[in-house]
């Protein structure tokens, strides 16, 4: 593999300097006063919570967005990128979190797209791709359709794209979010190799362990700006986490158990198979009692979303029984389940929880089309819906000019409070809460935790799914770990540590990653 000669690591050169960069969107300040210095030939990690402004900054670096203020200096030269083409010309390449690949095109076509001038689109390009692929052990066939590739392979296509363009600086946006641990190790191997050859890597993440393992320098972002820098080895995870979320790190405070003996939700042998015959869920057994919060821990994409959607009746299970309050609801549709008192706080509130271009009071009706106070089953009760929306706005502290405002205009936290308020109305018996505090500000997070705890005291059963282990441990009465569609272990939140959970979630350290045949449990 050819090392790039120009970017040989001299400590004195900085690959990128970001000086006082700011970016505003209508109603939001995405970035302000961002300062970062990235040394050449290093792996530089940029960390921060969701919504801290990392993505916007990254788009600015790659020329997708133009900054409103501040300057960018790349390789000692002040630059202003009008489009990604300019960034590419300055040797910057980007691997997006959501892969930027056209499924219906081949690996070759995806790689050469936009860079046809280098080696054309024919055999010369093919040779070059095979060359890079072999050099890094990427194992990619240039003529295969991308849609036939797995996640790890797609990511390698993305990296190949960047290398093909001769990028010296590679930006990776949350590259590990979609990978299993073994793939993460392989990726880190690749990154170290790239670094050794003089590439500079900007690694964006919110996973502190990974950052500490791979980075040379760390920059922390919070609320749209850079709030600190650190070096691994001189900083603890806790310190980093506190930098990320502010001076105090809120965790839900434990209150006395309210768990009763009465079973509210009972799931037996729930299995869900996809169109290809693969099990997304296999043989899930679980129970939740009245007044109990059951937390589900797992790396994203291990069946959590499918579990919730199956219980909601949005997916049809292949096998298994679901009982709520002793009644078999397996054959009920989503509306009947909602009428039976199942509330749903969806993972993706924009897709599943709101009508973005409808006013708040109409959003109050969503999910209650057949129920008081929004409807009498046939007619919509406008005044009832409006009154109750007003109640939610007040009780749940939804910051809005009024209930006639479109929900799109609200901030993420306020949208979420509206949803929580709605789903907690009408005396629910069971609430499925998927990542209830994702992407919301700290204030709203605390408020939502409070509401969940209060509802639990009143005898509600809660199925809580979260990627935030502290949240899970703080809120849950019991934690189940899900791995590849199976429940693989139960933990007591009183005694468990995030490390124990993390280990269970990944199925232990030395297990092969192949999911198809895997039977063993942690």
């Amino acid at each position, binding site marked *: 593999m050819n090392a790039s000669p120009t970017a040989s690591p001299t400590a004195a050169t900085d690959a990128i300097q970001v000086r006082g960069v700011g970016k505003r969107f*209508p*109603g*939001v300040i995405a970035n302000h006063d961002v300062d970062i210095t990235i040394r050449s030939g290093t792996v530089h990690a940029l960390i921060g919570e969701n919504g801290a402004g990392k993505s916007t900054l990254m788009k600015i670096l790659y020329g997708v967005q133009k900054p409103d203020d501040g300057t960018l200096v790349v390789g000692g030269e002040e630059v202003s990128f009008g489009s990604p083409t300019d960034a590419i010309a300055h040797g910057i390449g980007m691997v997006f979190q959501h892969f930027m690949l056209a499924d219906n095109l081949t690996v070759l076509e995806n790689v050469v797209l936009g860079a046809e001038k280098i080696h054309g689109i024919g055999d010369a390009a093919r040779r070059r791709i095979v060359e890079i692929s072999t050099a890094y052990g990427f194992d990619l066939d240039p003529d295969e359709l991308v849609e036939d590739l797995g996640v790890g392979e797609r990511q390698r296509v993305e990296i190949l794209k960047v290398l093909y363009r001769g990028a010296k600086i590679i930006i990776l946006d949350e590259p590990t979010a979609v990978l299993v641990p073994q793939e993460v190790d392989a990726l880190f191997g690749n990154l170290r190799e790239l670094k050794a050859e003089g590439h500079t890597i900007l690694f964006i993440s919110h996973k502190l362990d990974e950052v500490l393992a791979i980075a040379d320098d760390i920059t922390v972002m919070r609320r749209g700006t850079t709030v600190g820098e650190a070096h691994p080895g001189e900083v603890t995870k806790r310190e980093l986490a506190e930098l990320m979320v*502010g001076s105090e790190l*809120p965790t*839900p*405070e434990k209150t006395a158990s309210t768990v009763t003996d009465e079973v509210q939700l009972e799931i037996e042998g729930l299995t869900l198979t996809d169109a290809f015959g693969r099990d997304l869920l296999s043989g899930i057994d679980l129970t939740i009692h009245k007044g109990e919060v059951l937390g589900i821990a797992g790396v994203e994409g291990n069946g959590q979303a499918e579990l919730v959607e199956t219980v*909601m*009746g*949005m997916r049809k299970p292949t096998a298994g029984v679901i009982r709520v309050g002793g009644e078999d609801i397996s054959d009920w*549709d*989503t*509306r*009947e*389940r*909602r009428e039976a008192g199942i509330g*749903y706080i*969806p993972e993706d509130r924009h*897709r*599943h*929880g*709101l*009508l*973005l*271009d*409808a006013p708040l009071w*109409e959003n109050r*009706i*969503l*999910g209650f*089309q*057949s129920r008081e106070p929004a*409807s009498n*089953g*046939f*007619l*919509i009760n*406008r005044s009832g819906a409006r009154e109750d929306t007003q109640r939610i706005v007040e009780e749940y*502290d939804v*910051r*809005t*000019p*009024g209930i*006639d*405002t*479109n929900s*799109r*205009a*609200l901030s993420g936290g306020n949208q979420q409070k509206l949803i929580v308020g709605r789903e907690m109305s009408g005396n629910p018996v069971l609430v499925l809460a998927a990542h209830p505090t994702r992407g919301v*500000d*700290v*204030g*709203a997070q*605390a*408020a939502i*935790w*409070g509401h969940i705890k209060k509802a639990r005291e009143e005898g509600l059963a809660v199925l809580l799914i979260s990627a935030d282990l502290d949240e899970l441990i703080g809120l849950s009465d019991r934690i189940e770990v899900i791995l590849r569609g199976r429940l693989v272990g139960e933990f007591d939140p009183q005694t468990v540590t995030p490390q124990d959970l993390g280990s269970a979630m990944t199925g232990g350290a030395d297990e092969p990653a192949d999911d198809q045949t895997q039977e063993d449990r942690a």
Partner: protein
Amino acid sequence: MTAVRRVLGALVAPLVAVVAAMAITSIVIMASGSSPGDFWEVILEPPADRTMVNIVNQTSMIFLSALAAAIGFRMNLFNIGVEGQYQVASYAAAVTVGAAFVPGLLNVVLGLVVAMVAGAAWAGIAGLLKVTRGVSEVISTIMLNAIAVTLVGYLLNTYGIRAGNSLRTTEIPESSQLAGFTPFLDRDGSIWTLSILAVVAGIGFSFLLNRTSFGFDLRATGASETAAVASGVKVNRMVIISMMMSGAIAGLIWMPAFFGAAHTYGSTFQFQLGFTGIAVALLGRNRPLGIVFGALLFAFLNEQSNRLTLLTDISQNVVQITQGVIVLAVVVAYEVVRRRQQAAEQNAVKRQLDAAKPSDDKAVTA
């Protein structure tokens, strides 16, 4: 405040569109060497009595057609097939009423029911194909339009009665003909009785969409299918039902003219109403009130332009350009206004909240 802004926004777009269409029409007329002044003089002259009657009649049919399209559009279902649906339905009704199975007014009711059922069934094919086989309703309704034309043509050729140069169905009995209401002199014609269908359908549509939970389901599905599913809407069922409702209303489109004047399906059948309806639905933003104005505007332009050939050297077809440009301009204007409003509303929310709460948003902690 936001309500006022919304109303203004809703008015700005069509106004801009009409002005743009007027400007482009004038330019086109000028380019072809005629005088735009002549054109506007003829078009904007107060309509004659006879024209007024025609405008009312045409408005009612265009309105029904637009309503049929709008029902689908409100749930993001592009029923391009109104044209075919009302052809099939009109033919079916004409044959049934012509056969006079039942007497008098009962026959009228039967005809309307048959028209609605036939329209619904024809539209239902597209709904069924979408739900069971995932076929895009845009493509299937386009295909069904063409099939409808040939099918009705075949049936008319095979079973029709020859009258002069053309074929037609059996004329309906006199007891089933509805003369209508004559506001001026007899020679100025009458407003067809069944124009009232437009009023009934418009009110029914409005009530259904805005007041019933079914209507909410329908609108929710249009606004966000995923959110609707999560709220318990059975989208497949909704697709079939709304497609069939759209077809049923489409079935009524030509009924005022059929019972009021034509009395038979033949050379007097008015084609193209289905496509006009789609345009008017877009113009009126799929809201009954907007559609009323849109239908009136289109009917007005059509009828007023009839005199162009007589009084000027300008082709009356120029109003088709006007109409097309209005539709295109109005959808562009709506899109621009929508984006502006979104941004403005977000800003407004932020400003208001900043004013209400000067401190950092950490104020609420556990």
